[in-house]
């Protein structure tokens, strides 16, 4: 039965169903109710777990790393500046190929200071070597969290479950939580192949000379690429257990026959789907819901783009001085298609700016009649807020005479 639950509280209960043995977290801003909820479950005796309150996100990630390396199923959650502060350790966790699960309640990164939703935090650690799965709804966040433990432990890789901060974490809606029996049947007991064991001493993440570093990276890269299959399998297996899948690596929604596509990650999908169904002009598009950003499912993406003339990639973050982040990766993957669609990279909804229903029409109208790819555009920006020298039409900066 669907229960009225706030996203964060649903995730706390879902993590508890996965029977973590160690949860570490820095419990103040930028944190969500997720770890608060887990702490309460532990305090109430409903979850047998070591809950470690630490003094920073750097320590939160370090405790989770140590716990998982020593053989415990471990979990942490963070967002925004917290992700940045733990970023050094995130690279370590991935480089050591330690399986653990973290929720990133996606938020903007300072400065200027913002506590609201976009994808800049996860994008900042895009290259840390974690699996990154993006959730389109709180139900997907619940189901992806269970899957994340299975994927992490199967692949010996950490998994970041990316859940739009506020837009999902603070929204109450009807949610199906799995039964304990379903989760127990789906998640085998935690085992880390390279775990620390006094009987067989070994080091993790030690110094390697140039003779071996490249091979360590090669192995890590291959492990992530091989995880593509594990992510699909985990989703299919969970769908068999729970009746709910999340679309594997990439899901095609909307009108599969449409010649125009819109690719998104995260929770803006539902708004765009509603907007399409209510579009006064009756415009139909093929939605591409990209769930796995790392590993990047290039082949699945090419398949999903067959027959498209135009693809709009909507970024929720910015690489200043370049443009979008997801957009260029999509373009690169589609270069290998015989007849690739024309790709337009737009971004919207930075720092919590509302993503309204009329975004759908604005995206389509922005690219209508374009005879080449548009330059990257922040489609909901208001340049008139800026001093003239900062506006997009300002003259190029010249050297001082």
């Amino acid at each position, binding site marked *: 039965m*669907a229960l*009225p639950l706030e996203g964060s509280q649903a995730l706390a209960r879902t993590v508890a169903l996965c029977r973590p043995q160690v949860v570490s977290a820095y419990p103040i801003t930028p944190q969500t109710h997720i770890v608060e909820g887990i702490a309460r479950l532990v305090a109430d005796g409903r979850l047998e777990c070591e809950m470690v309150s630490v003094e920073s996100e750097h320590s939160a990630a370090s405790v989770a790393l140590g716990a998982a390396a020593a053989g415990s199923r471990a979990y942490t959650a963070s967002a925004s500046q917290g992700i940045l502060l733990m970023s050094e350790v995130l690279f370590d966790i991935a480089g050591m190929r330690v399986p653990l699960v973290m929720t990133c309640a996606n938020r903007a990164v300072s400065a200027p200071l913002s506590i609201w939703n976009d994808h800049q935090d996860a994008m900042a650690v895009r290259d840390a070597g974690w699996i990154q799965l993006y959730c389109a709804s709180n139900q997907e966040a619940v189901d992806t969290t269970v899957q994340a433990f299975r994927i992490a432990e199967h692949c010996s890789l950490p998994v970041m479950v990316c859940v739009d901060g506020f837009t999902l974490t*603070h929204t*109450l*809606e*009807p949610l199906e939580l799995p039964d304990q029996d379903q989760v127990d049947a789906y998640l085998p007991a935690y085992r880390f192949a390279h775990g620390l064991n006094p009987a067989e001493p070994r080091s993790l993440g030690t110094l390697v000379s140039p003779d071996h570093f490249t091979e360590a990276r090669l192995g890590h890269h291959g492990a992530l690429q091989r995880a593509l299959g594990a992510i699909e399998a985990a989703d299919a297996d969970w769908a068999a257990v729970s009746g709910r899948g999340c679309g594997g690596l990439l899901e095609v929604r909307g009108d599969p026959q449409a010649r125009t596509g819109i690719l998104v990650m995260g929770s803006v999908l539902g708004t765009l789907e509603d907007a399409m169904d209510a579009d006064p002009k009756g415009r139909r598009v093929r939605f591409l819901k990209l769930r796995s950003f790392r590993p990047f499912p290039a082949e699945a993406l090419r398949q999903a783009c067959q027959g498209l003339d135009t693809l709009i990639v909507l970024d929720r973050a910015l690489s200043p001085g370049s443009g979008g982040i997801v957009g260029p990766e999509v373009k690169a993957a589609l270069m290998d298609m015989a007849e690739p669609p024309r790709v337009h990279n737009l971004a919207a909804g930075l720092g919590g700016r509302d993503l*309204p*229903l009329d975004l759908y029409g604005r995206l389509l109208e922005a690219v209508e009649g374009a005879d080449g790819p548009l330059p990257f555009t922040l489609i909901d920006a208001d340049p008139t807020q800026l001093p003239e020298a900062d506006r997009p039409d300002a003259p190029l900066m010249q050297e001082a005479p």
Partner: protein
Amino acid sequence: MLEIRIHGRGGQGNVVAAYLLASAAIGHGRHAQAFPAFGAERRGAPVAAFVRIGEAPIRRRCQVRHPGFLIVQDPALLEVPGTLAGLRPGGGILADGAKPGVAGRDGGEIVTLPATRLALEHIGRPVPNTALLAAFLTLTGLMPLSALIHALEARFSGPMLEKNRILVETAAAQVESGRWKEVVHGVAA
């Protein structure tokens, strides 16, 4: 689908009111969604929260720009720019006030009831949210009061639940049952 915006001040239980209303609807077999307008969470600052209630799963996650109903927990906010913004023509405003009353306002209708005073009397705390929700359900006929009581049961128990139950019944009796029944259809999104 019905869209409702709730205005209050930080500390008045604004988000709780939105969550309670959506929880009541979900418990009653509807689809619903509730979320805060994302502002700084300071005690006393004007805050808002949104509720959507419908028969079908709710997919959109944008802010509510054109609510059919406003629930205003602090009457002073009625004079703050933005509180009434976007209200659908003919929409209803339910506000805390000194005494029960009905008046025309901004092309719609405002109903007031002394929600804070009732809360102080019955639960000893100046939080108008539960009384306003009871009045809202009574005016609109959206759901029976039992749906709200059921949602309260998830938060309270024992004597506090009993006090809330009495508050719900008392507040409901202060407004005209079904007065906004037709408005509900007129302002659906």
